[in-house]
């Protein structure tokens, strides 16, 4: 048995932050950002928005479009590198809010997270652990960037998107998934904040006010000075890794299915930088028009970027019944992944609340 995407939904913050607004705050310009990244604006979660609210909106839209209710879902997998909290998994709260059943978990595979989550859900469905799953990619990256660092803060945006998965016969739906990681590149994209080590430095933690504990019991002592909590990235190395990985992953996916990359109708790549996609397209000898890009309006939304782009492609009729679709991702870890799908119409069935097919 395989699994297919039955419907998609998205939840994006209300607030739009345009490059022009950043010009007033940083030593940068709209054109500089646009030329080097393809980004013009990004969504930013306001004080009343977070991963949970955006994910719930995305899941409810996917459910409506599939004509289903929360109770029809038996598995929730959430990919995020910027969870709202440490414990419990956001997937559990989403499950409770939706009235879904069955296992629920979060995972972090950097910007490849959605592809990892897709593979996990497909495997759980094949094991008979559930009949239908919601796979969510959600991020609030604007909360973990250093807004004084013009090289990184302009790149990211917030958002969530969800895919509803159901079992289908082999040879349909998700034909193949490939995943990989290279841990020796763990320092290329890095954010140390928010983890247990940093918690120890806070009031009440072992290196903070409760440091007296550590004096009495030495092994509890923690040195937490100098943790830089925000995202750091070695842009040039990541650029090269991304281009080479995208090409290799597409080749691997296609070879495994005895297909040529030229037979792929639409590539939905991780939206990190349009220049990465352009360079990869050139190396693969594929026309850029075959790559779906919406980075101009959303920036890099990490785990959410591929499903956000796929949802938009489906909604805007860029996908037709029987199309061969390749999803390609890469990110912190380093990690990468790819999925080859046979698109079935109705993947983005009508949403009653949006009137018809919800364009």
């Amino acid at each position, binding site marked *: 048995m395989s699994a297919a995407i039955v419907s998609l939904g998205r939840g994006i913050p209300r607030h739009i932050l345009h490059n022009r607004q950043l010009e007033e705050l940083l030593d940068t310009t709209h054109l500089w950002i646009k030329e080097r990244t393809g980004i013009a604006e990004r969504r930013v979660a306001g004080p009343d928005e977070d991963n949970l609210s955006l994910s719930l909106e995305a899941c409810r839209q996917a459910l409506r479009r599939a004509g289903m209710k929360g109770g029809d879902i038996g598995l929730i997998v959430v990919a995020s590198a910027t969870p709202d909290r440490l414990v419990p998994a956001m997937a559990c709260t989403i499950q409770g809010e939706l009235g879904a059943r069955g296992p629920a978990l979060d995972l972090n595979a950097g910007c490849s997270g959605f592809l990892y989550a897709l593979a996990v859900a497909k495997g759980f469905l094949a094991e008979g652990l559930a009949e239908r799953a919601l796979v969510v990619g959600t991020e609030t990256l604007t909360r973990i960037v250093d807004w004084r660092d013009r090289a990184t803060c302009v790149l990211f945006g917030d958002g969530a998107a969800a895919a509803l998965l159901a079992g289908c016969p082999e040879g349909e739906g998700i034909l193949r998934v490939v995943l990989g990681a290279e841990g020796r590149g763990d320092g290329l994209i890095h954010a140390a904040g928010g983890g247990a080590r940093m918690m120890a430095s806070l009031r009440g933690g072992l290196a903070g006010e409760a440091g007296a504990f550590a004096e009495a019991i030495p092994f509890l002592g923690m040195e937490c000075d100098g943790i830089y909590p925000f995202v750091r990235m070695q842009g040039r*190395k990541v650029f090269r890794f991304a281009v080479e990985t995208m090409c290799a992953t597409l080749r691997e996916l296609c070879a495994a299915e005895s297909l040529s990359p030229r037979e792929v109708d639409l590539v939905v790549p991780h939206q990190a930088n349009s*220049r990465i996609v352009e*360079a990869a397209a050139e190396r693969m000898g594929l026309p850029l028009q075959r790559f779906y890009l919406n980075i101009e309006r959303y920036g890099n939304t990490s785990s959410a970027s591929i499903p956000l782009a796929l949802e938009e492609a489906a909604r805007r009729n860029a996908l037709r019944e029987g199309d061969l679709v390749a999803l390609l991702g890469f990110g912190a870890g380093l990690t990468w992944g790819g999925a080859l799908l046979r698109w079935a119409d109705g993947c983005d069935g009508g949403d009653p609340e949006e009137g018809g097919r919800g364009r």
Partner: protein
Amino acid sequence: MDRTEVFEKVKGILLSKVAAAPDAVTPEARLKEDLEVDSLDMVEMAMALEDQFSISVPDDAIAVILTVGDVVDFVCECLSVRD
């Protein structure tokens, strides 16, 4: 491959990346200031050099390259081409 051939190939790579006039790509031309090569163009150029000359172009090598002539020198050194 001699130095002239290396230069012509390097010129071709640069012209495929930036909107400079062919005449502007001289050995003395500065990549950033004269040809408006940005940091991502540099990475793309490094990858193209690796493909076309079957050499390895590490990031620290890119960091010290300032002119078109520097690129040619670097490639020639990798290929052990003498003047």
